[in-house]
């Protein structure tokens, strides 16, 4: 395996995958909430609020105004250029990072990102989203992301570039899982003994493709504690916090293996503490307050780790 790569390129690959993972997560959440919004009987008081609250910087009064407005949300999330976190802007940023590291990504991957960029920048897209075509647009975008992940997996060499981009991807995924979990637990005050039904939890579970695995792995009500067990502590669920931290750990090993920087050991320990914090949390006896703290602290520590990681490897200017 190559022992080093340009810091700028490593930075580009890290952010390429972070942006793509964020866009993918946002799309899956949007798609779930959009499809569920057709069902009038679910008494959905939150609507698109979890999506708008985490993925946009809209003020609370705007969120309250638009949280049930599919037409607005679809356009704002997918193609509004004024929304810095719209899919259009995120894919554009991802493409810029891909361009900057084009000699380290495969031709197949570049071509796919490029075709996604052209699709999302189609001037007709906002208009089409106002029509029933919106469903097929969401389906196409979902398929594009599946294809992106597939192409990445099948064509990219397992060198340092792979490690840096995978770390970026899983940091982003972990942060999304924590944030969306907070979005559904905060309104019920992190009540682990509550009796929220499966319809309530479906939205949280469907977005990261965790619903079926949840049904197979857990049975009987109540769900509140089991959902936490699933999204945070289930090592078999590809979007769980414990799973994503485990993968980051693996890729950090590769990055640090041939690296003699003194700061590398400190960083390794920093991440080890973060991972152990989750690993050794006793979720069977977790209290409501402890859950809130675990989610908040993990998110803060992961953000801090991401910043320190960037400073160590990507500070090329």
């Amino acid at each position, binding site marked *: 395996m190559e022992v080093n790569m*340009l810091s700028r390129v490593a930075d580009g690959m890290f952010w390429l995958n972070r942006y793509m993972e964020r866009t993918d997560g946002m799309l899956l959440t949007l798609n779930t909430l959009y499809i569920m919004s057709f069902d009038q009987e679910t008494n959905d008081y939150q609507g698109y609020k979890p999506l708008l609250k985490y993925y946009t910087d809209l003020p609370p009064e705007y969120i309250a105004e638009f949280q049930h407005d599919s037409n607005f949300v679809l356009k704002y999330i997918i193609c509004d250029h004024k929304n810095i976190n719209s899919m259009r802007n995120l894919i554009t940023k991802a493409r810029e990072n891909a361009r900057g590291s084009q*000699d380290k990504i495969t031709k197949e991957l570049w071509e796919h990102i490029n075709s996604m960029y052209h699709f999302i920048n189609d001037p007709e897209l906002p208009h089409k989203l106002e029509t029933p075509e919106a469903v097929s647009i969401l389906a196409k975008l979902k398929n594009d992301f599946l294809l992106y992940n597939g192409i990445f997996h099948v064509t990219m060499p397992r060198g340092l570039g792979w490690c840096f981009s995978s770390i970026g991807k899983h940091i982003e995924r972990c942060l999304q899982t924590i944030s969306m979990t907070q979005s559904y637990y905060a309104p019920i005050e992190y009540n682990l003994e509550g009796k929220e039904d499966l319809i309530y939890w479906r939205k949280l579970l469907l977005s990261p493709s965790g619903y079926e695995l949840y049904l197979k792995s857990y049975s009987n009500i109540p769900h509140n504690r089991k959902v936490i067990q699933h999204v945070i502590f289930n090592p078999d669920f590809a979007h769980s916090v414990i799973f994503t931290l485990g993968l980051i750990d693996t890729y950090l090993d590769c990055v640090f293996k041939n690296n003699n920087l003194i700061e590398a050991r400190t960083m390794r320990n920093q991440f080890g503490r973060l991972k152990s914090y989750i690993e050794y949390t006793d979720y069977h006896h977790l209290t409501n307050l402890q859950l809130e703290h675990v989610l908040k602290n993990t998110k803060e520590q992961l953000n801090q780790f991401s910043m320190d990681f960037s400073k160590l490897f990507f500070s090329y200017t």
Partner: protein
Amino acid sequence: MHTLESLNLDKLNVKQKQASDIFMNQGITFTVYSDNNQGIERIFPFDIIPRIITKNEWIEVETGIAQRLKALNLFLEDIYNEQQIIEEGIIPASLIASCPHYIPEVHGIKVPHDIHVHIAGIDLIRGEKGEFYVLEDNLRCPSGVSYMLENREITKRIFPEMFRANNVSLVANYPMLFHNILVSLSPRSISNPNVVLLTPGVYNSAYYEHTFLARQMGIPLVEGRDLVVNNHKVYMKTTSGLQQVDVIYRRLDDEYLDPLVFKPDSALGVPGLISAYKMGNVALVNAVGNGVADDKAIYAYVPQMIKYYLNEEPILKNVPTYQMENPEERELVFADMGNMVIKETNQSGGYGMIMGNKATDEELEKAKIAILNNPRNFIAQPIIQLSTVPCYIDGELKLRHVDLRPYALCGPNGIQTVPGGLTRVALTEGSLVVNSSQGGGSKDTWIMK
């Protein structure tokens, strides 16, 4: 032709669309900058009908280019060292001294194997009788080679049967040949020297080409901010610290290379790079200062250079060129502006060019004033009707004017011209301007074996 004849218009339309989609999806684009500095990303128009050049025609081109480059390399070695060509009165000293691309900072430099031009793109046109003329030598950072390679790949995909049925010379080994030359220039005698491609960055109009070549040669694509000079050695900043760089294939013009020597406000270059280069700790490809040899005013002297350095008659002719510094030649041009093309000596890419037969009287008057104000800055050439080839445009086969840019590589083992090239097409009917920045397109070029 048999394959083309067997295809109806619908099929050709499908193939044209197929080719455009491939270009679009691959991001094979270039950026055009307008006066307000707004960059627009465009696809380089591609004509699906390949241009064919026979074996005998190619032999003339190949030997002519090799001869020309040999002389140009000797000229550069001479002009940055002894300057015998000036002493012998072949080229006026004033012409060199007034050339903005002559770089006195590298005078006396010894480059590896005495090679200054490692990669050259020589623009050729054909006259009325089919004879080749050299229109321009590109000896600094010639671009377009990625289009030559991609055009071939696309042609193979859209006309597999036609390609298979013909005996076309291979161009795909260009990156390997070039990479071998780059490795051979390393100042350190190590088995695996660090070779990098230096790009101005993602906003450069030829960025696609830079990434393409870096990928094809398996070398890192670096920007100026990725490099640092320490103790007259160049290093790249990597995730595990600094790593020494041995050879830089730079796609950055001389004046942006080192803010300590050239433009102080350039953020694209590397402070201290020229000092490392002069100390022989890093090789730059192409060498610094080559612009003096492809200056449009110096161009007129290339036939004399060939005679002086090689004692040979030029195989490829120059287009007759009038120096605007020479009062007699200037008057001659002013009397016949309608049949002349006026070019600024320090411009390229079709910029700073006036076609006398298309310009208005007002534009011609303005050009005259500009020439009189700074005659060294201009040359004039008679308008030559470029040859035409069939192109598939708007659902029909039409004739369009073309030029040809073959790419030649110079290394310690000699000069090799890749059997192919970039055929540039003036897509507008009657137009003679083929530059991509001026709406030109390209097509694959087949050299028959």
